[in-house]
């Protein structure tokens, strides 16, 4: 497959000698307009890659903060179709920042895989993370997505041992998302030493960039991960800012403020290392 925005972004970051700040935000939370304002503001706030959550009623692998965000978004009438519209609106002002759609399979299955892939690409989505589609179900969406020129980003976890790792990596592209803890999103922070061991182990078997997420909340935590991995993912902490906002404007500013702080942490690290 040809190079995607994700591939280009990681190549550029590597040249700059720094790790990617990957942000996660729920589409349509707290509503379409405010959500679009957040997404539009994220690159300026330091996000190198944006993951957009596709709301789902039963997000089994997510913690309470992201589940609540999804329910807020659904209550506001968000759908897969309007999530794609959100991305195409964003693309009108930003053609460089990679966008990854992250969610569960059923809304995509209900939409129809072929029309979804066509529409996702037209909207400007670069990659997919579908939590409940492991390698065993590659024929459902992963293989068609790769054929359509989208990255399919797979999760590896502490339970993914050396025997299983090749299966997970087989059809992965873009980057590998290492889930730093066995648990749901927003749970306890990972131990940096454990993450380092795992990332180094995985590096021996793949050239894909490795981004680490689950449990990262602060600039300091993210900076530690940035020393070890090619990217740090922050989701729950940003999503919680939406809920704390007193109104739409406040929610947008809170998310972007926190993003700025965390990006300083991540982007600071490697520059210091180079000095």
């Amino acid at each position, binding site marked *: 497959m040809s190079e995607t925005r994700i591939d280009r972004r990681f190549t550029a970051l590597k040249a700059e000698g720094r790790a990617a700040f990957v942000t996660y935000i729920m589409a349509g939370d707290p509503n379409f307009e405010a959500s679009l304002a957040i997404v539009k503001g994220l690159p300026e706030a330091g996000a190198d890659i944006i993951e957009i959550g596709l709301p789902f009623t*039963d997000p089994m692998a997510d913690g309470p903060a992201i589940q609540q965000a999804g329910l807020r978004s659904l209550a506001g009438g968000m759908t897969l179709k309007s999530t794609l519209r959100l991305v195409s609106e964003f693309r009108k002002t930003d053609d460089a920042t990679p966008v990854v759609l992250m969610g569960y399979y059923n809304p995509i*299955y209900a939409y129809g895989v072929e029309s979804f892939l066509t529409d996702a690409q037209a909207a400007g989505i670069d990659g997919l993370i579908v939590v409940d589609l492991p390698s065993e*179900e590659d024929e459902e969406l992963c293989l068609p997505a790769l054929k359509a020129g989208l990255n399919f980003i797979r999760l590896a976890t502490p339970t993914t041992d050396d025997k*299983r790792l090749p299966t997970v990596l087989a059809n992965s592209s873009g980057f590998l998302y290492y889930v730093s803890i066995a648990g749901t999103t927003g749970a306890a922070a990972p131990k940096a030493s454990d993450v380092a061991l795992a990332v180094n182990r995985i590096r021996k078997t793949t050239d894909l960039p490795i981004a680490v997420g689950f449990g990262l909340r602060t600039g300091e935590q993210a900076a530690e991960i940035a020393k070890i991995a090619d990217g740090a993912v922050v989701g729950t902490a940003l999503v919680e800012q939406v809920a704390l906002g007193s109104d739409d404007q406040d929610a947008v500013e809170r998310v972007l403020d926190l993003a700025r702080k965390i990006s300083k942490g991540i982007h600071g690290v490697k520059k210091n290392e180079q000095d």
Partner: protein
Amino acid sequence: MSQLNTYRAGPDETGHFGIFGGQFVAETLMPLILELDTAYEESKKDKEFAQQLSGLLKHYVGRESPLYLAERLTEHYGGAKIYLKREDLNHTGAHKINNCMGQILLALRMGKKRIIAETGAGQHGVATATVAARFGLKCSIYMGETDIERQKPNVFRMKLLGAEVVPVSSGSRTLKDAMNEALRDWVTNVDDTFYIIGTVAGPHPYPQLVRDFQTVIGEETRRQMLAQEGRLPDTLLACIGGGSNAMGLFHPFLDDEGIKIIGVEAAGHGIETDKHAASLKGGRPGVLHGNRTYLLQDDDGQIIEAHSISAGLDYPGIGPEHSWLNDVGRVEYVNATDSEALEAFQLCCKLEGIIPALESAHALAYLEKLAPGLPKDHLIVVNLSGRGDKDIFTVADALGVEL
């Protein structure tokens, strides 16, 4: 699957029944599920495992359960001869323990130290807490707050048995949400925890292994009917939420093409309303809780909350093998409303001196449409999946009686 000459051969090696089934779970769980599959396949070849299980089923659960000729129900409907398969007489009061006993032995075999489960009506929770107590394993049961409220006696029983009952306040606060929370717990505690799923749903190999542990119901029914009537039954009838009691009764008879097999879904306030739990008649295929199956969902693939007066049937999905049997037409799926089930519940109490579970009452409710028109030598077996002591508060409430 379409080329098989038997309805009993499923699932295929990838865990599918036609397009249904599969393994739709987060990567964290995949290594565990594969490990479970291997452990289960090995246990099938182990004679000691089979002996231990059948010994426990006989001496602890109280099997075999009687196949009872319900003379007064038969007389009442004036048609077919009605037999009740008395799963209500099992220890803990329902068929659920058959499966729990099998799974706890698997958990021990795999060296697990902690058991989790989800429960709707509380029957599966009680059965799980019971086997966990029997083998001295720690146990946490996830239960929606709505169900905790309407199934208080079972909640207390679980606590007496030493289990922790974890209230689930997310979503509709019923079985679907309890299942989400149990999956979250499992993802977090993969190292030492075994998840005992209570029905023929979830990621492969669960639909298959739960079915296999429940087929003791149908196998006994075959033997008992041959002994009592000298031939096999003509019609089988069972209620369906996830569908484990139904699958347990149906599966050993699927290849007997002459036998009519009927599953009864919960129609709640009516299949035409938005308050029912009939996934097959009111839903379409989708992916939830680790498998593809018929689901109650909106056009955008969001899951719709189910409704049934019976907490055990109140689930927006159904086991994938039922979805397949529906599509290939081997089993006929019908439904009964809350009020039809309530009437059948009372009728069974009055005529047979048996208080049936509200779940089972859905199967009994279909007798009214089925039995009167059939000849007197037509043999119907209704699976009386559980007893209704746990439901007396719900029933009293529905009848306007204050206890």
